[in-house]
């Protein structure tokens, strides 16, 4: 039996819950400890996931860890990742990995010099629906990609961390405000599906429609184009209903549309005789949607939610740590994601420092 991989997690907020659930579901993984500046938070999470609490991250890093997850607010990501590298660990950093692409590149260089891996956690890459889009594209049934649209509608206005004037908003100072937190996911999907080549942002309209200053921007409508001529639309809305995380990829031979929040798939491709294709597509997609509704209900009851890609991402990263290989996300794609985020955020209000 292999020695269990020794894991430590810094930061015990809501996302740590997903990392801990995923890590503890995997074989040959030992979560050695969790760390939070709030002692009661570290203790509570440690109790629930049968591990050891730490308040000082240096003490956690002294435990001889193979992998450290950095799950703290973004401003501390790079410093903590460097400390973890210095302790000899591989590092998985929640998105955004760094404040900008230059900082991300420097961190990745440090990791390479130390012979360790640093990766940005982009869990949605491993959701069923995203994998299906990737498979369909790779199969050639969509032809060559022409347009990619990634649209998130999510009501973030009720989140007390942003709307409460007594609290320091964790994002108000960032270019792009609360949306900045979602950009790595959106940009990461562009990189995943269209490659890590240059993407030129043609326009990016940022606005705050809710009037809640702590959110920074809460709406984005951006258009971009890859060096291969594929047009890209990225949009975020805190006001639009129903909430969605939709990906639409249109190619020269067909299209696929999926949603990650209320999972469904719509695929329009050549099916059978050309004259019957539109009708066949309607029948096939109608049937698929009915089945997707059943699957959705089952997932809801069994609590298999939007975060189901986390365990796959972690598994792929841990596997690369043990055995080598590309891992879930190569450094070039981490950088390409950060560059696209920078380009999109360049037009947004906020203090980049």
């Amino acid at each position, binding site marked *: 039996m292999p020695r269990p991989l020794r894991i430590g997690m810094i930061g015990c907020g809501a996302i740590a819950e997903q990392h801990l659930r995923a890590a503890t579901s995997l074989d040959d993984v030992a979560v050695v400890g969790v760390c939070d500046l709030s002692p009661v938070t570290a203790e509570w999470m440690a109790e629930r996931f049968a591990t050891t609490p730490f308040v000082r991250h240096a003490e956690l890093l002294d435990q001889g860890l193979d992998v450290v997850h950095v799950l703290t607010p973004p401003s501390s990501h790079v410093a903590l990742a460097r400390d973890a590298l210095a302790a000899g660990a591989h590092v998985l950093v929640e998105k955004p990995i760094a404040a900008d692409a230059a900082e991300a590149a420097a961190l990745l260089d440090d990791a390479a010099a130390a012979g360790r891996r640093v990766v940005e956690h982009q869990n949605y890459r491993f959701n069923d629906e995203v994998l299906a889009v990737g498979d369909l594209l790779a199969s050639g049934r969509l032809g060559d990609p022409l347009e990619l649209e990634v649209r998130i509608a999510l009501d973030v206005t009720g989140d*007390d961390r942003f709307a409460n004037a007594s*609290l320091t908003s964790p994002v108000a100072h960032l270019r792009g405000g609360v949306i900045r937190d979602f950009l790595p996911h959106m940009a990461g999907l562009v990189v995943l599906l269209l490659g890590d080549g240059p993407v030129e942002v043609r326009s990016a309209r940022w606005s705050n429609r809710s009037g809640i200053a702590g959110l920074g921007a809460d709406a984005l409508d951006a258009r971009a184009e890859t060096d291969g001529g594929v047009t890209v639309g990225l949009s975020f809305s805190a006001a639009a209903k129903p909430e969605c995380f939709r990906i639409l990829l249109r190619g020269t031979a067909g299209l696929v549309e999926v949603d990650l929040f209320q999972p469904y798939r719509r695929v329009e491709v050549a099916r059978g005789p050309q004259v019957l294709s539109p009708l066949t597509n309607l029948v096939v997609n109608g049937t698929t949607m009915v089945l997707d509704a059943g699957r959705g209900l089952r997932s809801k009851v069994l609590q298999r939610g939007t975060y189901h890609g986390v365990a796959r991402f972690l598994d792929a990263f841990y596997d690369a740590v043990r055995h080598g290989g590309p891992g879930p996300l190569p450094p070039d794609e981490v950088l390409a994601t950060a560059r696209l985020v920078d380009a999109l955020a360049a037009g947004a209000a906020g203090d980049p420092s």
Partner: protein
Amino acid sequence: MILFVTGAGGFLGRAVVDAARAAGHDVRALVRDPARWSGPAPDDHLRLVAGDLRAAGPWTEALDGVDVVVHLAATKAGDLHSQFAGTVVGTERLLAALAERPPTRLVHVSTFSVYDYDRLAVGAVLDEDAALVARPETRDEYCQTKLVQERLVRRFAAEATTEVVVVRPGAVWGPGELWDGGGLVGLGPGRTLVVGPRGALKLTYVTNCAEAIVAAATAPGAAGATLNVVDDDPPTPRRFAAALGAAGLQVPRGVPVPYGLVAGVAALLAALNRRFAGGRAKLPGIVVPAKLAAWAKPLRYPNDRARTVLGWRPRLDLDAAARDCADRSGSTS
């Protein structure tokens, strides 16, 4: 005395501020946004302190010279981590501030939700000696976070010089919070499911409850005590709805269903869940045994200890409370 009240802008907090002033105390009321304060205008005896326990801020300086801290602030909505941050991390920060500026007494307002209803037989007495929840994961976020919060306060009590009183109110009702007249699940317009129609509701009228909390701030024998606060003669859902109706307050019509029937269905579903889904299936709370028991198991709720230790009497009986509630809701017909 000077009382520092956290969560003063909330439903119970507002009533505690009123009760404290009525009892002749000076109040420093911690509120997130003073612009949204709907209580009496600040004066020499009432000072609004802007702040949030989750963040460091000048609110800690307002603890200088305080005799008693009444801690009501908690987050009751949102996911587990939001509630944990608001309820537990906020308390952690408050207790750290109290260690720097120790008051004579801390009145911690906990909840009936921390009790383990699953372990009590139908008809049993639930008093302060009842066991606390052993498996928090079977209960809702509010229970889970209030349990950790109370544990934190008890640890503080063991180490600090400050006296600690833990008050556990039942279901606090009043203007804007009528608990659907004892209904558990809405059944469409004007109808609600009443599970266990013959069981008592662990109710306390907001004014009565606030007066108990203020009494806990000063009662000499209360130090170190844990006190359940419910009103006298807890009513059945039908009696509660009738009192509200007689006062002109609108509540949905109750559709009664025996507790044993729903508990049986819940037990069956729990067994199926364990058998076929490894216990992972998330079902509505009404068919989750531990949650159902907490919400609707028919039990008896004495208030002897609070009456004895605090010298408190629920001033308004059910009918008087309903009339007071209607007057203050402006909806008397």
